[in-house]
């Protein structure tokens, strides 16, 4: 047995994962044990939050530097830590906004929290995975959890349909991803990203068409997860059908995880084949943002609109991916963080304004909100402007970052298309504010019952959006450090 390599096992490196899975179980246990008596089940949310906070506390490199454990298949570097932070943040925010929502929708089961925590584990694995296997497993853990969460309102046909669509298409795309992985494996003999990279480097670049095809198929698989056109089609339907809190989660966490894996694979493994994949991503970026923005204009349902907007944002992030320089990577990190705040914030407001069985998700239902609930409207306005990329918000700095990256690498055409798109996007984001402030209300606003948790979520989102917009410096520095680790 001498020829079996000694495992480089570092339990600390997966401590956050362990914590989350532990808390996932605890939630389930508490749920079962306390099932009828607890009634409100507030406890579950708090337990989950504690788990997230603990995970966040321990989500750091034990040695303070990059650490590869599990046979170099799991990387604890600033990059994955940053993404871990994004995941935990989005999970935390999602739990905050879920609390009242699931109670109202009567899907208040312990599994809900557990699944969110488990899917976070998947995301963390995707971000930290340094080989294709880990990334794949992480992706599946995340996806399957979310398939279930999407269908969580099981008595609602719309939720079932979303779940089915997401599931079938997701599995279909997984097929492509796997096929890609197998071809990459076949032509390099490795599934570890670094080994792939060194293999490609030893050949002086990619000349093997099989490898290229494998790469292309991986792009498809991950492109599906990040909602890139033409693999985006599931997004609007699923976003619309899923429970709103899960939509918020889905638009942030898995997308971030997808990009985490995307960047790591393309840059770490295929970094020297930049020329080969950049043209694909280039086209995807253009298609994605344009399609997302243009169709979003035609939407009347706010969840659908946010879905298309989410597609568009994926397009912007793909710009950063194309530029593939240090700025692109740190830009992606920053943008994802910013997007987490503003998007979850927006969905939180959608949740606050909706009622059971009467979701009020038509944009026109927001008429007159501006002066009826000024603070909510103000927050929504902030998020909309942030998504549109208007200073001084996080969205602006993020876009600025991404376009900088593109220009730095000389992709001026892409940057131009990007900014044109962001102008188009202004139109539909603006329409929300228009309707909130400039239209007369068409319905009575019932007095809202706002739970403190969701208020906290909105407050965190507002503060985050503004803070990243006005004082982005600290986060930027962290994001920049993160990029040094990738190569």
């Amino acid at each position, binding site marked *: 047995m001498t020829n079996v390599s000694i495992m480089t096992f570092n339990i600390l490196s997966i401590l956050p994962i362990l914590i989350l899975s532990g808390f996932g179980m605890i939630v389930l246990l508490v749920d079962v044990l306390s099932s009828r008596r607890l009634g409100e089940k507030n406890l579950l949310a708090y337990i989950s939050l504690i788990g997230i906070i603990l995970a966040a506390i321990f989500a750091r490199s034990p040695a303070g530097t990059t650490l590869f454990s599990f046979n170099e298949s799991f990387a604890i570097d600033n990059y994955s830590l940053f993404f871990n932070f994004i995941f935990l943040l989005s999970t935390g925010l999602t739990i905050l906004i879920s609390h009242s929502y699931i109670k109202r929708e009567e899907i208040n089961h312990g599994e809900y929290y557990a699944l969110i925590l488990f899917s976070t584990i998947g995301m963390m694995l995707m971000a930290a995975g340094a080989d294709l296997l880990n990334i794949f497993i992480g992706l599946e853990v995340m996806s399957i959890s979310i398939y279930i969460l999407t269908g969580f309102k099981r008595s609602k046909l719309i939720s079932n349909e979303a779940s089915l669509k997401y599931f079938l298409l997701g599995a279909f795309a997984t097929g492509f991803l796997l096929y890609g992985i197998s071809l990459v494996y076949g032509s390099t003999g490795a599934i570890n990203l670094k080994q792939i990279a060194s293999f490609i480097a030893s050949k002086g670049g990619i000349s093997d068409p099989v490898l290229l095809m494998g790469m292309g198929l991986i792009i498809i698989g991950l492109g599906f997860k990040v909602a890139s056109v033409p693999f985006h089609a*599931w997004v609007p339907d699923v976003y619309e059908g899923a429970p709103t809190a899960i939509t918020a989660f889905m638009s942030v966490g898995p997308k971030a995880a997808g990009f985490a894996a995307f960047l790591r694979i393309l840059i770490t493994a295929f970094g020297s084949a930049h020329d080969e994949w950049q043209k694909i991503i280039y086209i995807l970026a253009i298609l994605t943002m344009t399609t997302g923005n243009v169709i979003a204009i035609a939407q009347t349902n706010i969840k659908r609109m946010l879905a298309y907007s989410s597609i568009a944002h994926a397009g912007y992030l793909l710009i950063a991916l194309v530029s593939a320089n240090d700025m692109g990577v740190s830009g992606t990190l920053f943008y994802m963080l910013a997007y987490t705040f503003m998007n979850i914030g927006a969905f939180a407001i959608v949740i606050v304004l909706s009622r059971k069985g009467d979701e009020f998700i038509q944009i026109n239902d927001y008429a007159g909100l501006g002066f009826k609930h000024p603070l909510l409207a103000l927050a929504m306005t902030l998020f909309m402007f942030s998504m549109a990329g208007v200073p001084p918000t996080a969205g602006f700095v993020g876009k600025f970052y991404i376009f900088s990256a593109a220009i730095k690498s000389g992709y001026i055409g892409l940057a131009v298309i990007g900014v044109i798109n962001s102008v*188009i996007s202004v139109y539909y984001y603006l329409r929300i504010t228009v309707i909130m402030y400039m239209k007369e209300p068409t319905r009575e606003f019932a007095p809202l019952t706002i739970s403190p948790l969701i208020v906290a979520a909105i407050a965190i989102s507002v503060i985050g959006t503004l803070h990243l917009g006005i004082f982005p410096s600290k986060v930027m520095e962290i994001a920049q450090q993160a990029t040094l680790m990738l190569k």
Partner: protein
Amino acid sequence: MLNLVALILLFPLIGTVINGLAGKRLRKETVGYLACGAIGLSFLVSFMVFIGLLQLPPDERLFEKHLFRWIESGSFISAAALQVDPLSVVMILVITGVGFLIHLYSIGYMHHDKGYHRYFCYLNLFVFSMLLLVLSNNFLLMFIGWEAVGLCSYLLIGFWFEKKSASDAAKKAFVVNRVGDFGFALGIMLIFLTFHSIDFTEVFSAVSHGNFEKGSFTVTMITLLLFIGATGKSAQIPLYTWLPDAMEGPTPVSALIHAATMVTAGVYMIARCNALYLLSPFTMTVVASIGVITALFAASVGLVQNDIKRVLAYSTISQLGYMFLACGVGAFTAGVFHLMTHAFFKALLFLASGSVIHALSGEQDIRKMGGLKPHIPVTYKTFLIGTVAIAGIPPFAGFFSKDEILLEALVRGNFIYWSLGAFAALLTAFYMFRLLFMTFHGECRVDHHAMEHLHESPKNMTLPLVALAGLSFVGGFFGIPGANALEHFLAPVLGGHGHTEVRGAVSAGHHGAWLPYLMMVISTAIALVGIFLAYQMYIKKPGLSKKLAERFRLIHKLLLNKYYVDEIYDAIFINPTKKISTQVLWKVIDVRMIDGSVNGIAWLVGRIGSVLRHLQTGYIRNYAFYIVVGCILIIVLAVFGR
């Protein structure tokens, strides 16, 4: 004493400010006398300045008073500084003198008007502006005065703003003047570009140092541009159309602004720039030609007009034409001389006509007058003096000045100028006496309603009439051949180019010394012929004019409608502009094309969005199909796209 020059400006300004801000609360008498007093004081100071100037040796009669730096930008410097020299002194004396009389007259004339204080505020402002115009020491400051008098003219023409015709006329005056100002402004810029300065002294000294050869293109352009300005302000062809309409204003305003002072600004300006003009023979020809044509043209229109003030207006245009003729042939002194005498008798005529209108409760149509002589004797007498003066009967003021212009036109210009000028003089004598006869002589056509109120004007109105009549009588002696007081006085400004030289040349021989005297005789004869014709047509055979009118119906109609110039302008400039602006620029280019394309793009994007959203069919199989298509494309791109 010369240092007092700023006071000349200050008094009317104070009058303006007080009447403007507080006039509403003051008693009418206070307002009137305040305004009059301001101008009176101004006149006194002007006179003191005049004395002061006289005490200097002729060659040093130039005084500059720097007030403050106005616009300074790089090398472009325009100070707020005043300049006193013989030319400006003559002007300020005329302005304040005639102005004072007209103010005095206005107290009575405007007594019943609701906007009494407003009127005097404007009138004082006008005097201030006009003084600024003639006292400034650089082109730009002069331009301020130039525009400001235009503004006052606008305000005063539109004084009775509730009358549509009045406000239309006001606007027209301002706009037409602006067209002229366009030239003036460009002229100033070109001067700045050429001379790197816009100070009179610097510009003219640069000229006199002979840096420019005669007839150089730049100077021709400068002078032509300035002349455009002059045609606007002094109502020459083609920009004269505003002046007849300006008669919508109160009559004293017509007297002061549209006869005596403002309209002569163009002449003043050309005289001021004589050094420049003399360098450009071409411009001189243009000036002279425009002048003489205007003189004749306006006179011909004047023949058939029936509105008492309009006749005077056309006569003003015609007389201004004479002044330009004089300037154009190089006889600047003669121009200024005529300017002065014209100020006297035309102010007189207007005020007298105002008195007539006043007497007839606002009636202006001479066909509804006649036989007024016994009812308003003072007015009649003064009007007669004015008419005689303008017709050119010795020894009245107009005779000397007009005769001198005609002489100069012949001597320095050519026979055509002279003959056209002389013919215009004939017409002038004719239509002025036609006016006189139809107003004061013959049968009375006044309707009985107005007849009841017929009365002679009060003292404060007749007094200025008498004073002006006196001036019209003696005014000519300032420039009487032989004494030539005015000529000598103006010589430092209008210099060697004045007509002494010509006189000298004349007397030295080309035509012999007898020529001036012969011309005097001929002029007088022409005037007499005109008067005789008028007498024949309107006193002896009152029906003759109608017969003639029917005989030459076409010409008569043409003249009566002022050659349809207004209509032509409307048809060529105004209506097409409005139409194009509305129908093409606004409705098509702006709304349809530019805005249309902007909205069109927005619409298109939205449309594409609503079309593309249908790709989102909701069918899983479609979505999977997209994935497969994307997959194939990506693989092709990845593998074969190199």
